[in-house]
């Protein structure tokens, strides 16, 4: 048993070492925090990034972070905020809810951030929001579109195009401009975004007196959709409303084409990814989805054009997507609120943030209504054309 004793000591030492490195850091921060209290803030304003750099939602997190970094650079080169530089503290939670909460806790207690931007998904935002609320730190999600987010508390915001704004606008457009009357609805049952969006689409479909001729459920992670497509094959629908994410969307459309169906797919911004175009190839041709932002050379404002140029320059000519723009706007919204309040105290600048009206951002205009929900205009309707995304139309929202 001697050998095992040695290993026991070794591993015990390892844990102690791990704990000590962690706790040692903690001590420093405590001192730093005390110092900050005395001087009412150090020489930087810290903003936390909560999102996934690995795991299932990595595509969203990485893009959001790019936008955030660009905004911070813009602010810092222009002289900073209230005479201080902005610093981004980034943490990865690997797309896991439980880690999302620990990361939030870390950003607040160890890094002492004044605001957190993230998470791009609704689920983790809902897990992180109560922690931010309890600790009186502003949390602005650049991507959470599901219900029940800002209701968590008055420190919780989001700057997204809500599905409750987008889905009715698009349904109306499909009915009036494209003349659709009959649709099939496909929902991914293990995806909170999809389940919520389906409900909104259904409501809008009834309002527009359109008919749901078929309903199918899938699961995120499914690879084979033969059964579902066979079931909707003879429904003679004008189109498929697909509320899930990009991977399943592309695979679903491949099966649709394989079985010889001509229908196109309409969905939400969960489809917004290069993966959708690459994986779907010609099968997703003609597919449409709405989102809060798209690169539209003809209609975009100077501010937007400037952002697009800067993004392209830093990313080998790739065009920015919804998440990077959202991330950029999130930082700018917070920065403007801090400026208006003349303080980086979350308790003060959150009041200014709530007052935001017709704020001109890169993604469009944003107004926070009485319940702090964002109303964003316009809604961009995108279409896949020759393997590329093109703006089919912009729908103004009142």
């Amino acid at each position, binding site marked *: *048993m001697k050998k*095992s*004793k040695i*290993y*026991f*000591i070794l*591993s*015990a*030492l*390892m*844990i*102690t070492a*791990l*704990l*000590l*490195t*962690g*706790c040692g850091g*903690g001590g420093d*921060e*405590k001192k730093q925090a005390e110092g900050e209290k005395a001087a009412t803030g150090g020489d930087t304003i810290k903003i936390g990034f909560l999102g996934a*750099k*690995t795991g299932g939602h990595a595509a969203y997190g990485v893009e959001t972070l790019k936008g955030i970094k660009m905004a911070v650079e813009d602010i810092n080169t222009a002289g900073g905020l209230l005479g201080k530089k902005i610093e981004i503290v*980034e*943490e*990865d939670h*690997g797309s*896991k*809810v*439980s*880690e999302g*909460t*620990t990361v939030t*806790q*870390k950003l*607040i*207690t*160890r890094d002492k951030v004044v605001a957190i931007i993230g998470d791009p998904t*609704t*689920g983790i935002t*809902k*897990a992180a929001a*109560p922690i931010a609320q*309890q*600790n009186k730190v502003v949390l602005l999600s650049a991507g959470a579109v*599901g*219900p*029940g987010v800002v209701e*968590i508390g008055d420190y919780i915001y989001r700057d997204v195009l809500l599905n409750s704004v987008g889905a009715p606008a698009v349904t109306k457009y499909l009915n009036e401009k494209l003349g659709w009357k009959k649709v099939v609805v496909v929902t*991914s*049952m*293990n*995806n*909170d975004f*999809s*389940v*919520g969006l389906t409900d909104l689409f259904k409501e809008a479909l009834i309002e527009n007196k359109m008919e749901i001729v078929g309903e199918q459920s899938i*699961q995120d992670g499914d690879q084979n959709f033969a059964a579902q497509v066979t079931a909707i094959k003879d429904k003679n629908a004008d189109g498929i409303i697909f509320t899930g994410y990009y991977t399943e969307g592309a695979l679903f459309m491949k099966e649709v084409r394989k079985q010889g169906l001509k229908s196109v797919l309409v969905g939400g911004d969960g489809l917004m990814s290069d993966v959708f175009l690459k994986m779907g190839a010609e099968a997703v041709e003609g597919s449409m989805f709405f989102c809060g932002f798209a690169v539209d050379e003809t209609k975009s404002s100077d501010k937007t054009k400037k952002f697009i140029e800067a993004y392209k320059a830093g990313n080998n000519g790739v065009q920015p997507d919804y998440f990077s723009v959202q991330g950029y706007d999130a930082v700018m919204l917070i920065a403007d609120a801090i400026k208006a309040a003349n303080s980086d105290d979350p308790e003060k600048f959150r009041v200014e943030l709530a007052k935001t009206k017709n704020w001109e951002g890169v993604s469009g205009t944003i107004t926070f209504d009485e319940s702090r929900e964002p109303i964003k205009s316009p809604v961009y309707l995108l279409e896949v054309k020759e393997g590329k995304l093109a703006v089919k139309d912009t729908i103004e929202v009142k």
Partner: protein
Amino acid sequence: MDSIFSMFLNDYYIQVLTMLGIYLIAALGLNLITGVTGQLSFGHAAFLSIGAYTSAIISLKLQLPFVVALLAAGLMTAIWGILLGYPTLRLTGDYLGIATLGFGEIVRVVFLNMKITGGALGLAGIPRSTSLTMVIILVFITILAMFRLENSRFGRSLIAIREDEIAAEAMGINITKTKITAFALGTFFAGVGGGLYAHLIQYLNPQDFGFVKSFDFLAFIVLGGLGSIPGAILGTTVLTLAPEFLRFVADYRMMIYGLLMVFMMIVRPRGLLGGVKLSRLFAKKKVQTTGTSASGGAN
């Protein structure tokens, strides 16, 4: 007690250590099933989720005290453990593993489609009742219970079943009954862990209890050493704390975590403390004290 902790530790460490305690309780439960009795279970996260949802619903819908919710979570999970155990524990080895894997997926899909659990939208707004003190006390109770169990007549029959079922039966052990009892006990602790988890994270989503989490628990106890209580504690501690404290290496975090696992398995194929018993460690006082202080999170 909690105020004492918050004097020395900031909220982040409290959160991480509380999480560790919860995982310890659940992992010790799995250790009883897989480590001591030798019954491979891939569905431990499902039991955790049953406990989590049960306690959350009791807190949210019935507004009963937290202790009641926790107990109910444990009991409900144990009931499901028995219900699953009765038909499946006649299977052995890989077959049992697959059956529990299937069960885990069924549980996840059921929670996804139930109205009361909020489906894919998840269950939000659960009160935060879990505290570090409570978790530490429960961890010690669990360790004590496991220790007493293993060294009882019942515990010895479990080990006998692990070593040789036929021989155990020949010695007059009712195999099915003993196995199911062990399964019920193990899942009870998973349920309690789940209840604590729900009241710590305050938000439940079936996605978080997939089979990946079940494998995490299996990795905890295999890495620490199957069938060893200090092993399970050590394995859970290392694998739970490592990803958090490796944050300073940022993007390489999970790579180092993986390397750590591979390296440990090469050096110690039977786990860090494979075959080491708690009673033996007690005899060597110095070694023991380092072990518990790290695992109890009192650092």
